[in-house]
């Protein structure tokens, strides 16, 4: 399958995507409550950015909610420290931002029916060798999807360092706005995440199906670069 990479706005892109789900509901802006699982550098940065973008945000880590109450209050004021279960019960969309060697500790049916944004990267240096993640031709998110078969998985927000998520948000139309790609097989989920990306201050780029996720990983071509939407879309379709 070739990637239908496009830098189009979320509300214009449907006709450019060959495998868009024609019968799916189309209100991609309905998601109001964002959950973040993982209260580390990335999770906290995303929580802060999402609060600023107007989402109701709940953050959870592996422990009880009280354990992250203070960091959430100081680092992401306005977000609510929660348990994983509370996040799953309340959120319309959930970002998974735990270390890649730990996602298998979460139950397989936990995110059934939920839009799940896989923002993790597999770093052998810190995660240790993981044969399954290393061997996946379609990238780590294919393995994550297999672990959470009922989740509507989208790989995104893994491309930038957490401090770039702090430093680079720009208003829609700004000339120096940078792009963030999303890939996934559930097209409505992808479009919903693209709407999130836009509200966070980045130009969303549809990178095609989940198996294209390899292109968004360390050592992949666009990985970790700050690119315009046009350039990112070209890089993704050139591969």
């Amino acid at each position, binding site marked *: 399958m070739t990637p239908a990479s496009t830098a189009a706005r979320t509300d214009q892109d449907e006709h450019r995507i060959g495998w868009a789900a024609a019968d799916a509901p189309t209100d991609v802006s309905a998601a109001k409550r964002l959950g973040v699982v993982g209260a580390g*550098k990335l999770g*906290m940065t995303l929580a802060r950015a999402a609060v600023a973008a107007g989402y109701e945000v709940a953050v959870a880590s592996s422990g009880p909610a009280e354990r992250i109450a203070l960091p959430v209050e100081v680092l992401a004021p306005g977000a609510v420290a929660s348990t994983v279960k509370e996040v799953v019960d309340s959120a319309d969309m959930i970002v998974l931002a735990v270390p890649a060697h730990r996602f298998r500790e979460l139950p397989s049916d936990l995110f059934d029916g939920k839009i799940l944004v896989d923002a993790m990267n597999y770093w052998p240096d810190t*995660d240790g060798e993981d044969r399954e993640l290393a061997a996946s031709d379609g990238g780590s998110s294919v393995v994550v999807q297999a672990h959470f078969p009922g989740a509507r998985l989208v790989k995104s927000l*893994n491309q930038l360092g957490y401090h770039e998520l702090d*430093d680079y948000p720009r208003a829609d139309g700004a000339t120096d706005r940078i792009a963030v790609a999303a890939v996934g097989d559930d097209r409505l989920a992808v479009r919903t995440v693209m709407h999130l990306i836009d509200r966070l201050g980045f130009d969303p780029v549809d990178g095609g199906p989940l198996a294209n996720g390899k292109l968004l990983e360390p050592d992949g071509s666009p*990985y970790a670069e700050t690119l315009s939407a046009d350039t990112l879309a070209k890089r993704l379709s050139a591969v």
Partner: protein
Amino acid sequence: MEEREYEFGLDSFMAVTAGSDGETIGGDQVVRDTVEEGVLADEVGIDSFNIGEHYRHDMMDSAAHVVLAAIAARTERIRLGTAVTVLSTQDPVRLYNNFATLDAISGGRAQLILGRGSAIESFPLFGYDLRDYEDIFEEKLGLFAELLRGGPITWSGKYRPPLDNVVLTPPLPAGHLRTWVGSGGSPDSVIRAARYGLPLMLAVIGGRPERFRPLVDLYRRALAQFGHRTDLPVGLHTLGYVAASDEEAVETQWPYWLETFERASRERGWRPPTRAQFDAEVAHGAMFVGSPETVARRIAPVMRALDVDRIDLHYALGAVPAAQRRESIELLGREVFPRVRDLLKADPAENEVIAGSAALGDVASPVRSTHAPAPTR
């Protein structure tokens, strides 16, 4: 008002440096050069000299305490420490033995920064499993904090044999061996430092250092929550290089910065570094490179913005030759740090103007995060 006490230190990873003929010089020579650099730092008024911990072909800092002991024997004043000690793969008892001995040799000048380390080559080398990364550090920090309290110790855990009413030697006088906890910016590690009531050292090696301010606030709030005094010191580790002029400093550091980050990019999957990224880091990121006046005017507002008591500058990045490293040390000790002290004493308004220019430009840092390479950690 009581004058605030600052510590202006230097960090070295004992990089294998370039010789005058362009070839790298021998590792044994790097070790001897580092001892001389520590002695020089003392002569020019630097407050502390701190050595890292790596086990790789281009860095010779695998036995910091031995190098520090050699410096201790030839100096009277400078504090001698680590930046950082990878506590996870050391035995806390052995670490105590080494540094209590250094403290005795130096007349009470030993100090430590303990961290999990972003370089993880010590895990396979010493037979540890990377999957225990979190648990090992937690357990060993807990034990080391107890050892610092002195007296007979009874302890048991998972990662070393139990201690039954053991008295460690040599004894440490009360308050000696000040021990900091290093953090690359993860909220967990900031909270952990606060839980043990130990001073916090923040490492920033890319992007705007000012963005770490919320972590300083988190640390102080957490200290209060854990019932510790809230005025424990906070420090900042960052990168720098000083020469007579801005141009000389920038052009001397640039090729070695490029070499260092090209290697890191290959090893860790970061984006390949560019000159534009280097320039952005120098202009308002974590590279304090330039003439003494330029670097002093970068450091002072950052220290003020972060409300820190200590700054450790990695005084030349990569294989910068020994002669240039020595020049950087001299200028830092004789000109930069005294000037920063003056700026910090002066009217804050003077510094506000400089801090206002600190927004990051269009070009991103090549550094994925601070000391931990994974953005999700």
